[in-house]
Each structure stands twice: as C-alpha cells, then as structure tokens.
C-alpha cells in the first residue's frame, strides 16, 4: 500500500512539476554548464581544457542536480502546509510517509533527467567533444605500479628463439571516460542530496530554502573541504572520492592550483564499494530521520503559517 500510495504521489507531483514556469527554470539550469563551457571555449586560453573535468563536476552534479533538488525537495512539506493540503495527507494511512517518498522520487527523477540532459548537451556542443568525450587528469597520470590497481593473468607466449614460456600479462584498470563518471555521479548525488534536503525540509518546514542553502554552502561546500574527520559526514566527501577513482586520477598528480585538496584526509580511504555503502547509509539515515520526525510531529495548518 505504501508503494502504491507513494507512486500515486510521484505521478501526481511529477506531472504538476512539468508546468510552464518551473520547466522554463529547469531548462535554464540544464543549459547552464553548456553555456559556461561555450563561454570558456570562446575565451580561448582562459582555463586549460584539462580542468574541464573538474569544472563539470562542479556544474553538473554540483549545480544542475543540486539546484533541481533544492527547488523540488526542500519545500516539499512547506508546499503541503502552505497549500492547505496537509490535513488530507495526514488523514490518509501512511499518508505522511507516502508524500515524503513520492516527492523524494520526483526530486531524484528530475535531478537525474536534468543531469543527463546537461551531460548530453555539454559534450557535443562544446570543445569537450574534440577530446573524444574523455578528459585527461589535470596533469599526466604516472604509470601505476601498485599491484592493487592491476589484475594479472598468465598466458603462454611462443618465441622462436627461446621456445614456449609463461609470461605474466599486466592489465591496468582502465579509467572511466568523463561522461560515464559524470553519469554515475549524477545518479549518486540525486539520491543522496534529495534525501539530505528531504531531512532539512522536514526539520525546518517554515523557511526550508534558506536552511537548505545555508546548510549546503556551509557543510557541503566548506566543511566537506576541511582535511578533518568531520568531512566524512558530508556527501561531497564520498562523491569526490568516487569520482577520483572512476577517473583513475591520483592525489599526487594534482597540480599546484588544486594543492589545497592535496591531502589524503580530503578523500575517503575506503574502496569505491565502501564509499557507495557509506552514501547508502547516509541516505537511509536522512530518510529514516525525516520520516520519524514527520510521523511524530504535529503540524497546525492555517494557525501557525
């Protein structure tokens, strides 16, 4: 029943979100990375192309997805309370959870669509296309000799001079192309940031956008960049660690311009699976806390708003 009810909310809210005003705003947000890249291309020697990868991480999962989520998820409860529809939600069995999950799915879907469209738009229409949709790291990657990054297979090689012998073939893990890394990052950030903003929208339902913007700038923007243990509680910390691994970049390769993040504490020491698990746990904690608050709080519609 909860699934059916949540899907009903999803269908209703998604359709509602496709009205003219929000769609125009959404398209502007989607076009933003492409416009920025085109301006960089026009500027010529403004920013080295090699840094486009880092820039795209900032503009697509960072700006396109986050702005989409900010507009759809943060005010999810406020919209019900100020629209005077909360009483109808509250008197439905599991209505509070359904409205939260339904709107969460809308936020994730809109964010993923926005991210994918932004990726699809930025590569063909900018100079990034010339790089065959792949971006080298900010400086050349050192040949990796670490055994953990290689997989080994033994095979028989025949040589006329020395006869047949067994040789070890070394297969280096191939980094993902930038577009694919961005696609993965878009999916992850859509799920994670939607759950985070769901919690923030539940905690402070009267001025959700203000709290969400302050929190994102302060915690996800500043605290996540601190080389301290506290950054492990931010989503950004895991996302950038995953991105680094997907792209096959190494910390020691980072140029002086990015030296401020040249610290092992800036990135997760887990494997990619460990990071994914951490993000899943964070997501579940955010959603569970939001749902618990929602079910146990009393909301006085029309009296306090």
């Amino acid at each position, binding site marked *: 029943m909860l699934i059916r009810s949540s899907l009903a909310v999803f269908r209703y809210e998604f359709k509602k979100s496709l009205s003219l005003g929000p769609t125009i705003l959404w398209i502007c947000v989607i076009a933003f990375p492409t416009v920025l890249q085109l301006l960089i291309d026009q500027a010529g020697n403004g920013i080295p192309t090699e840094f486009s990868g880092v820039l795209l991480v900032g503009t697509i999962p960072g700006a396109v997805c986050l702005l989409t989520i900010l507009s759809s998820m943060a005010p999810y409860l406020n919209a019900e309370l100020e629209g005077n529809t909360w009483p*109808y939600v509250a008197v439905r*069995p599991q209505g509070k959870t359904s409205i939260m999950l339904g709107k969460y799915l809308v936020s994730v879907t809109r964010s993923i669509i926005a991210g994918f469209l932004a990726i699809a738009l930025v590569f063909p229409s900018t100079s990034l296309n010339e790089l065959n949709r792949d971006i080298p790291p900010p400086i050349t990657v050192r040949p990796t000799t670490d055994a953990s990054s290689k997989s080994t297979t033994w095979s028989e090689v025949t040589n006329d001079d020395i006869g047949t012998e067994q040789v070890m073939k070394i297969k280096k893990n191939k980094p993902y192309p930038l577009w694919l890394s961005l696609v993965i990052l878009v999916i992850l950030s859509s799920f994670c940031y939607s759950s985070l903003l769901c919690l923030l929208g539940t905690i402070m339902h009267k001025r959700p956008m203000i709290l969400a913007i302050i929190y994102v700038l302060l915690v996800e923007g500043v605290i996540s960049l601190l080389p301290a243990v506290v950054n492990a509680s931010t989503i950004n910390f895991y996302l950038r660690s995953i991105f680094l691994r997907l792209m096959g970049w190494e910390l020691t390769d980072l140029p002086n311009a990015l030296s401020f993040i040249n610290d092992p504490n800036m990135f997760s020491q887990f494997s990619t699976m460990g990071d994914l698990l951490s993000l899943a746990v964070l997501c579940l904690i955010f959603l569970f806390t939001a749902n618990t608050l929602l079910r146990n709080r*009393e*909301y*006085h519609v029309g009296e306090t708003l």
Partner: protein
Amino acid sequence: MEGAGMLQIENLTKLYGVVIGVNDMSVELPSGAYGLLGPNGSGKTTLLNIITGQLKSTVGEVRILGERPWKNEAVLKRIGFCSALDILQTKTTGLEWVTLYTEMLGFRHKIAVDMAHKALDRVGLSGTDRIRGIDQYSRGMKQRCKVAQAIAHEPEILLLDEPFSGLDPIARYELTNMLTEWVQEGRGLLISSHILHEVEAVCESFLLMMTGRLLASGTVNEIYDLMTNVPKNVWIRSPQASKLAVVLQELDHVAGIGLHEDQEGLDVITTDASSFYTQLPGILRAESLRIHEMQSEDDSLDSVFEKLMQLHRGEL
C-alpha cells in the same frame, strides 16, 4: 461501529504552549449525525484535528470507532475528513486532486479514478468543471472538491469542518441534500459550524463549544429551549418607563431592570424571555401603559454562547 460507538472523548485537553485549544472535554456519541457548534476560535477545528489523528491530545483520550486516532493507520481508512481551509495548491484539475487522495488510501489508479468520478457526481461538480484547473474554481467548487475527496472511499464516518462556508444558496441546498442522504444511509457524521441553521437540517444533535469547553449538548429543540431560556436583555422605550419598571419588577422571571437617564429607556433582564413576551401585552393593557419601541437581543448562537459562558463563570 455499532458496538464501539462513534466517538468517545474523555477529559480531553489540548494545549498549544500556554494557549488552551480544548479544555477538559468529555462526551460520548453513539452513531448518528452531530453538529459541532461554536463561534470562531472556540476549539472546533482543534477537536476535529485531534479526532482525525492530526494532533495529539495533551491530556485525556479520544477514541473514534473504538480506536485511538493518533498514528493509527487502520482507523484512518474508515473516516473521511474535509478541512475548513481553502485549497491553495492549484496546478491540477479537480479530478486529479480527488483521485490522488483516493489512491493514497490504497486504491489502484483506475479504481481511484472511477471512485473520484462517482464522488464528484455526488457533490455535483460537472464533467467539464472537474477537468479544469482548480485555480479556475470558485470557492464553492473548491468546497465540493474537498467534500468529494472525503466521501470518495465511502467512509464510515464523515467529519466536515465548516463545509457550508463559501457556498451559494443552491450549492448549500445540494450539499444539505447530499448529507441528509448520507445520514439516512446510516453513516456517522460530525459537522462543525458557527451557524445553527446551516446544520440543523442535517443533524439531530448538537455540541456547543466555546473557548475550548463543551458548554452544552442536545437535540435541536433543546438548543432552541436553551436559546429561549438563557437570561436575555430586552430594551424598551416608553413615555411611562418608570411606572412600567415598577410593574415589571413584580414578575418572577425579571432578574433586573435599569432605567435610562432620559427616563424613557428601560433595560430589562429576563430569565424567561418567552413568558416575558407573552405577559407584556396584558400588563400594558391592564396598567394602560404605552411603549414606543422594543428590542431584544438577537437569538443567534453567539448570544447563547455568551450567556452560557457567563453562566459557566457564575456571572449570571
């Protein structure tokens, strides 16, 4: 429902910080149609919100259909609720809006659409109107939409908060008919209103609330008796006011008389207005007295509430 009764309220108190929403209320209602009457701010909406599980009681207990409503998913499916607040979220059609809330009760989309159509038929929102955006609706049409979402799943009890508000006379008549049919089908109904005549056509019994307290309850006749029997002020203008005052003070039901400075105005407080009005012509004839003007307090519920509150405080 028959065994458990429709509603049991025991020593219910609801506090909003230091403000009292509902004050030590106890009542037990068997299945039937009830009007919850009281002026604005009397605690009707708070009480309905507690009954529908939106708010939690501070002290005391509420049971609807024998179950506590707070965080009780099972009982919510058996009740229908219509809020007094106007719908401000308007980017969808009335049909989609009613369908959503029906689906949220666990019905499949197709079934929910059919149920929404039936409910909208019942409240008289036409086929063309229901596929228009809610932002184009009049207040009465929104009100019909709100009632439709409450009745779509055919609940056992219908709780309506000010359902007649904003309705034109025709819509009011149609809603009254619909609710009368609802009651005749043997379902429970609780309507809040601050106007007695709005709900007296539908409900057989009433609860009177003011400042969070249950002041009185009873049938419509008992309420009218109450309205007649509470002490009432009558203002009389007569050229022989002082002489009239002397005669009137002899009557048992006259609790007080005040003579105006102009010696023509007279304020009479009577505890039995009905007897006063019956006896007054005879007294005037017998004493050869004349009056030019007479005004009594209006018989509205507000004045009854005021008097009941004064009685409650021991001021009368």
